[in-house]
């Protein structure tokens, strides 16, 4: 009778909650609360409560697959990797692209970018952070010096005013909603911007600003203008810690509040209430995610919320700041490791200097000095693609077009744990070990590095991602630079190359429940829960205002496509649904896609609840079941993006943010027809 209770961290969102797994004879048979863990103290959300079932889904990839005569056939690692190596040798630095994932471990991600730069000689390495939080870096590096979450999760409870900017907190980050709720019990106020009247609007917010999709910048300009007019700005903070207020002040003087009301659709009184509530708070905390950043003006949106925070002095204090909330387990870490075409590890901007630095660190020559191609462009421009742990066929806008491009690709390698939409187009599919099938670190939402230990064996011949890539590097003649025998050895190299991680060791992590926040410069350093306490990380140490002009969405409704469409998440599912749709209890809650339709619109078109409707945009059409609800206002339709059989991104528009290259997946024009 061998039953063990082993601790681990939840595989889903980026909160990093603790879980105890019950393991009997090498198999996980249950899970129990881990009450000591500081993030969740023994509690979990619905996904966290059903954390491990996906591991045992029958269709886990167990053997390498190679496409022969049009179908994927099982083969040996030897044959599969030989084929991949020979094909990748044909590729050039310009036409090869590597797409990593927010689900990779730090060690995996680090090896992936190193492979891309050292073996393939290109900076064409990206991860899905590009599609959700690239505006954070683009906007917040100039504003404050870093795009990371600025406070730690426990400190969130200290805030007395929250600005939930387009984040349906109760569904997407329930364990952070818990902290907001605790702060509320002590009197904190919650402002929430979202076009939908979500469960967060109904059960967490005090002031819900139900703005029109994509009008965030106009709303914030109006709020700032009101704050200045009423003299509620934090004069001392502005004087001592910021630069550029005069330009902002001059610009805001021209803001027409009546017009802002018309653009946003939010009554001016409510905008005023929100503005004064946030400005008068002691400790204002902006929490945001894709609702704000997945627009072609995403960077502008983030810039303007940063302006608001600086204007009121709500930054550089525990529980305050403007906090980008990365949605996935390694959303932070894969970026830290350098899986972005413009950054070497540790956010060192690609260029001559950074290439030289890493040439020395890695003992190699001729590292690429020019920025690579960004995620979405890569799909269209790189005929040799290596895609690990992600599904561009689900998450990239205008999927039909993506498919057309990928069907023309020379060679696509997909490395994952399940067959996915993208693996249907792959030439080689490699089976990966995941989560507790290997030892690895991840970096969670608040720069919190924690280690996950190996608990069970991977299925069949599946292997950790880093091992597969190291073996491929060996086949491509670069064994000496990828001679890692454990994830621990990779982490040691990470510590040497990334100053923020220098003081973090596997040994420290195994002793520190809840992990360590980077930056952690030495092994004696406790880690840094709050950023910017003394100064910002900008060259002059000041926070910088950046004037933002409102621009309307790229595509707005017209006669032919009369509705706005927006996309989002359900608490019961995770992203592309690969894991949660294989978890019976979660899939029983929400088993298929749906479209939320306001009763007024439903009556106009003759749609009844549960009718099957066709949604059509200029890019494609899908079917979904109508959910008639006042959760959406008239003129707006909402669909979740978890369901491959009703893929939301068939509809969305590929309008890209010019600075961040993030796409406008949160708003486009759509028509709806009842299916005959």
């Amino acid at each position, binding site marked *: *009778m*061998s*039953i*063990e*209770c082993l*601790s681990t961290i939840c595989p889903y969102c980026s909160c990093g909650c603790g879980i*105890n797994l*019950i393991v*009997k004879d090498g198999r996980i*048979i*249950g899970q*129990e*609360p*881990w*009450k*000591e*863990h*500081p993030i*969740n*103290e*023994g*509690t*979990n*959300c*619905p996904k*966290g*409560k059903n954390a491990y079932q996906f591991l045992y889904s029958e269709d886990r990839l167990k053997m390498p697959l190679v496409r022969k005569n049009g179908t994927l056939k099982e083969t040996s690692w030897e044959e599969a990797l030989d084929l991949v190596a020979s094909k990748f040798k044909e590729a050039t630095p310009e036409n090869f692209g590597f797409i990593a994932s927010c689900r990779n471990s730090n060690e995996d991600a680090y090896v992936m970018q190193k492979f891309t730069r050292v073996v393939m000689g290109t900076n064409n390495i990206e991860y899905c952070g590009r599609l959700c939080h690239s505006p954070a870096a683009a906007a917040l590096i100039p504003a404050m010096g870093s795009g990371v979450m600025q406070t730690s999760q426990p400190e969130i409870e200290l805030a007395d005013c929250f600005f939930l900017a387009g984040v349906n907190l*109760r*569904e997407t980050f*329930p*364990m952070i*909603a*818990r902290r907001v*709720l*605790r702060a509320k019990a002590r009197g904190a106020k919650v402002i929430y911007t979202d076009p939908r009247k979500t*469960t967060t609007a*109904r*059960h967490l917010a005090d002031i819900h600003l139900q703005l029109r999709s994509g009008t965030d910048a106009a709303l914030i300009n109006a709020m700032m203008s009101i704050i200045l007019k009423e003299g509620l700005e934090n004069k001392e903070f502005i004087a001592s810690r910021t630069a550029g207020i005069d330009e902002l002040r001059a610009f805001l003087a021209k803001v027409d509040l009546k017009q802002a009301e018309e653009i946003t659709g939010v009554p001016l009184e409510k905008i005023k209430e929100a503005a004064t509530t946030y400005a008068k708070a002691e400790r204002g905390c902006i929490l945001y995610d894709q609702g704000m950043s997945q627009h072609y003006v995403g960077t502008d949106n983030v810039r303007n919320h940063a302006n608001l925070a600086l204007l009121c002095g709500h930054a550089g204090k525990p529980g305050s700041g403007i906090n980008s909330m990365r949605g996935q387990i390694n959303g932070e870490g894969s970026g830290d490791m350098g899986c972005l075409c413009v950054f070497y590890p540790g956010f060192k901007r690609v260029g001559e200097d950074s290439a030289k630095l890493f040439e020395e660190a890695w003992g190699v020559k001729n590292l690429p000095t020019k920025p690579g191609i960004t995620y979405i462009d890569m799909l269209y421009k790189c005929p040799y693609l290596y895609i690990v742990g992600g599904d561009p066929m689900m998450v990239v806008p205008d999927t039909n077009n993506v498919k057309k491009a990928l069907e023309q690709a020379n060679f696509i390698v997909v490395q994952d744990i399940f067959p996915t939409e993208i693996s249907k187009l792959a030439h080689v599919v490699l089976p990966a070990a995941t989560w507790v099938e290997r030892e690895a670190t991840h970096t969670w939402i608040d720069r919190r590095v924690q280690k996950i230990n190996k608990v069970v064996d991977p299925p069949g011949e599946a292997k950790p991602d880093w091992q597969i890539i190291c073996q491929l590097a060996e086949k491509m003649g670069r064994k000496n630079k990828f001679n890692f025998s454990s994830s621990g050895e990779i982490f040691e190299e990470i510590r040497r190359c990334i100053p923020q991680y220098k003081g973090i060791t596997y040994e420290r992590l195994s002793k520190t*429940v809840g992990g360590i926040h980077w930056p952690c410069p030495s092994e004696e350093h406790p880690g840094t829960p709050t950023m910017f306490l003394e100064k910002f990380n900008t060259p002059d140490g000041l926070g910088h205002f950046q004037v933002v002009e409102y621009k309307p969405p790229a595509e707005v409704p017209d006669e032919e496509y009369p509705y706005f469409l927006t996309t989002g998440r*359900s*608490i*019961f599912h995770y992203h592309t649904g690969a894991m949660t749709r294989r978890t019976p*209890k979660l899939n*029983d*809650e*929400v088993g298929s896609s749906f479209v939320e339709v306001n009763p007024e619109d439903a009556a106009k078109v003759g749609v009844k609840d549960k009718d099957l409707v066709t949604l059509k945009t200029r890019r494609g059409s899908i079917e979904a079941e109508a959910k008639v609800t006042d959760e959406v206002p008239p003129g707006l339709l909402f669909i979740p993006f978890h369901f491959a059989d009703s893929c939301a991104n068939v509809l969305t528009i590929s309008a890209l943010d010019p600075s961040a290259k993030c796409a406008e997946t949160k708003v486009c024009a759509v028509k709806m027809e009842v299916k005959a």
Partner: protein
Amino acid sequence: MKGDMYIARSPDKETADKAECGGAVTALLKFALESKKVEAVVAVKARDGNRYDGVAVVITDPKDLIETAGSLHCASPNIARFLKEYLDGAFNSKIAVVAKPCDAKAIIELAKRNQIKLDNLLIIGLNCTGTLPSAKAKSLFKEQFEVEPADVVGEDIEGNELIIRLKDGSEKKKDLAELEEKGYGRRENCRRCETNIPVMADIACGKWGTTDKDSTFIELCSDKGADFFEAAIEGGAIKVDQPSGNAVESRKKKDQAAVESAQKWQEKDFATLEEMSAEEKFSYWSEQFSHCIKCYGCRDACPICYCEVCFLEAERGFIPPGEVPPHMLFPMVRITHVMDSCVNCGQCQDACAMDIPISRLIFMLSKKIGAIFKHEPGMDVTALPPLRTVTDQELGQEGVEVTF
């Protein structure tokens, strides 16, 4: 025989040194395994030596028992659930289990529901005046005692004081009531728990009634417990003395004091719920349950819940699926299914992601129902859940009313 009381300690020096109170509990567990009276022991150990991380362990080799020696006040693993869920409810093996009073009561409730085979269990009960929430205990030690949590090597609750022992051998004390006033201290359910001595177990062990730190006061609470204990004496596995009359009296007094304190907490906790008007109650609970995110944490943690396919599961179609918060029937069904049998273990509230005071509510209802039916959950395996055995005639009686 049942009812006998002893002062006991381990004859083995290593056990006595490593464990607390003379190592009597560890010695009994060792005897249970070595004499093959059980195949396994279920106890709690500090994982990787971390006092704040107590987990249930299954031990079959007597040599491993030493790592479960000593008490952990900052841990509250769900022992009854562990037995039911992962050890087939002891239907297929004989097990000795170490249980706090709430654990033992939950085991008895599960046995009533045919989920645990009591015949195969030897319940070694431990006196308990409360446990501290693991994560919060660390901030308590840091912020109020001003010590590093890792430097704490022992805790004790003695009368009104929380005492901690540090690595360097020193002790620090603080007034428990004051700490609890500030929001620290014991888990909420523990504060109002009146059962400090686990007389529903086979053997009840504790320090009350002893005069030194090297012995354990033992009461034999069942025939099974008495037979086992007498065999342990005979086998030389445990050394015993007779407790003095003073010792017995002192134990009783300490228990009474703890019970009175618990009753005060009950009055206080329940008053906040009872003093509201009907409208206020409705709005308070509607608000509380509107925070629910349908994680099923409370249900899964409840040691009394046991249905294979719960009525509340989405696939049953009773609660509309996919909604957050779930329909009000969700908490209502949970409450009504367990409210005649709540043992106030607090596991549901510990597991609630949204801090809903669910254990306070269910325990309050359980007390009310208990008063009507003269029933105390978790004490007697033959006393069936009253709402299951209630007769039409009883239901028709006037003046019987349970509200919240």
